[in-house]
């Protein structure tokens, strides 16, 4: 459904150095550097997938989303979505997509949410019946019935985000782009938003492309992740597989009565050590957890012990590190 091949985009950015002299210099003779925002991206997305599109700040996530939603024209490459090239047939294409920018609102600030919804109904030429149905569904699943008559400026961040997401789904889009939808939300709102994304994905087969820095979003939602860094795709795959690959790593934390023993077990790496506490990362493909515990109990007078899988957060951090981005 989404086919992206060889997509590249670079930006010209004026070079600015600190200091008044160089500011003058660049005023008289501006110099530009070219930044390759994305470089030769290729991927396919099938209908009904939820893609976690992740990468550190400045990796090119937003640029990709902007190209895929028809806002930007790439320098090179092709992108076919639902049979359209997004930047060519803008008006017809955007009818089929919904976009939520976590940091930008699409609702009118000073009037009740419902007024914005009604305007969207006319902008997208949504038939009355479909509008009513969608509104009912959105109101009940997003729990926004109380909010519709409130001016947007009086809503909390979480309430606003729920209304934003509602606004982007009124016209039955087949694809939903979410750019950091949970940024700044409290725990309850985050869970509500996640739950809702899951629901519409299941019930309406909406394909979701989600960028986020919140790894819990990814864990809760994404069936597949695409990792991008410095404009290139570094990893594209199933989240479960990725987790398994990294889950040979377990973390053992032990509390013990004072000891200065030094450990040296193959397959075990020291994370941190204090007088009473030790954290180890264990590679279970080299040494079994039970063996490792055995060895430890011989060396230390154990008071407490816990074994954890590495959280997804850490997996991603180690991925960033691995790819040096």
């Amino acid at each position, binding site marked *: 459904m989404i086919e992206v091949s060889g997509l590249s985009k670079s930006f010209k950015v004026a070079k600015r150095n600190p200091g008044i002299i160089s500011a003058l210099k660049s005023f008289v003779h501006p110099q530009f550097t070219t930044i390759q925002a994305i470089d030769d991206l290729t991927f396919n997305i099938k209908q009904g997938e939820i893609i976690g599109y992740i990468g550190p700040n400045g990796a090119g996530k937003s640029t990709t989303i902007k190209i895929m939603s*028809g*806002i930007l024209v790439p320098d090179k490459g092709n992108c076919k979505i639902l049979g359209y090239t997004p930047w060519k047939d803008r008006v017809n294409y955007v009818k089929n997509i919904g976009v939520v920018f976590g940091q930008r609102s699409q609702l009118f600030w000073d009037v009740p949410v419902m007024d914005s919804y009604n305007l969207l109904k006319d*902008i997208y030429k949504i038939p009355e019946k479909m509008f009513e149905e969608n509104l009912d569904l959105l109101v009940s699943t997003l729990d926004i019935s109380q909010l519709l008559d409130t001016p947007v400026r009086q809503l909390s961040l979480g309430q606003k985000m729920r209304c934003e997401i509602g606004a982007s789904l009124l016209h039955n889009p087949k694809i939903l782009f979410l750019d950091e939808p949970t940024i700044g939300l409290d725990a309850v709102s985050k869970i509500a938003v996640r739950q809702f994304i899951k629901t519409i994905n299941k019930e309406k087969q909406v394909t979701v492309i989600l960028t986020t820095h919140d790894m819990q979003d990814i864990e809760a939602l994404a069936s597949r992740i695409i990792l991008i860094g410095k404009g290139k795709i570094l990893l594209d795959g199933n989240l479960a597989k990725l987790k398994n690959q990294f889950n040979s790593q377990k973390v053992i934390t032990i509390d013990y009565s004072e000891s200065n023993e030094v450990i040296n077990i193959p397959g075990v790496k020291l994370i941190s050590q204090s007088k009473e506490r030790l954290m180890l990362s264990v590679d279970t493909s080299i040494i079994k957890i039970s063996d490792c515990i055995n060895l430890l109990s011989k060396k230390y007078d154990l008071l407490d012990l816990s074994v954890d899988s590495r959280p997804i957060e850490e997996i991603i951090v180690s991925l960033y590190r691995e790819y040096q981005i």
Partner: protein
Amino acid sequence: MKIYFKYLKILIKKELQYRTSFILLAVGQFFVPFIIFVGIYLLFLRFPNVGGWSLYEVALTYAIIHIAFSISECFGRGFDVFSTNIKSGTFDRILLRPRSTILQVFGTRFEFSRIGRLLQAIIVLIYAIYHLNIDWSIMKTITLMFMIISGIIIFIGIFMIGATFAFWTIEGLEVINIFSDGGRAMAQYPLTIYNKFIRKFFTFVIPLGTVNYLPLMFVLDKVNENKFIYMLTPLLGILFIIPCITIWNHGVKHYKSTGS
């Protein structure tokens, strides 16, 4: 068009929420230009006429350009303050909607407080017409209407060009005010009082002369030949919008290829 009225409904609703600020703005909009007219009036106390035009004739010229300007600012304000859309990223949102960008930019702002400026211009218009002995034929009435329409469209065109600049540079858009505010200030007098270059510029480049000066030659019976052409000039002035739309579309294309 229906969708534009929907936008208007929301925008008016929004403006009505800030009553005090609306009233103060409207009052300001009434008096600031009105003082300019007082200046013109005082000028005519000294001199019987300017370039062969009497006080009341100049008042008519003034009224028409100010009516057109206030209406165009009221509806076309979205273009006038467009650079804020680029800064805040609202324009991305516009590109995500399945409607024309021009329609949507019109829909971003509506400056109802310009009714103050409109009101003072209408008062001056009535004052001028009351004192002038114009034999109002149907043709003259229609011409007057077209003068205002032409003025509105030309000013909106200027705002559009100014807005297009924002695709290239965020700051320094003041330069377009030379033509919008400056143009209005120039065209509140009949162009005949200026030198040839300015006259030509405001006739053929930015055709504000076609809004009041040229058709008024017909309305005030200052010409005897080619009356028909003078009458038609407001319609020709409207054509100015065509290059403006072209330039705008070019700007949108540029934005899409560079981002911000």
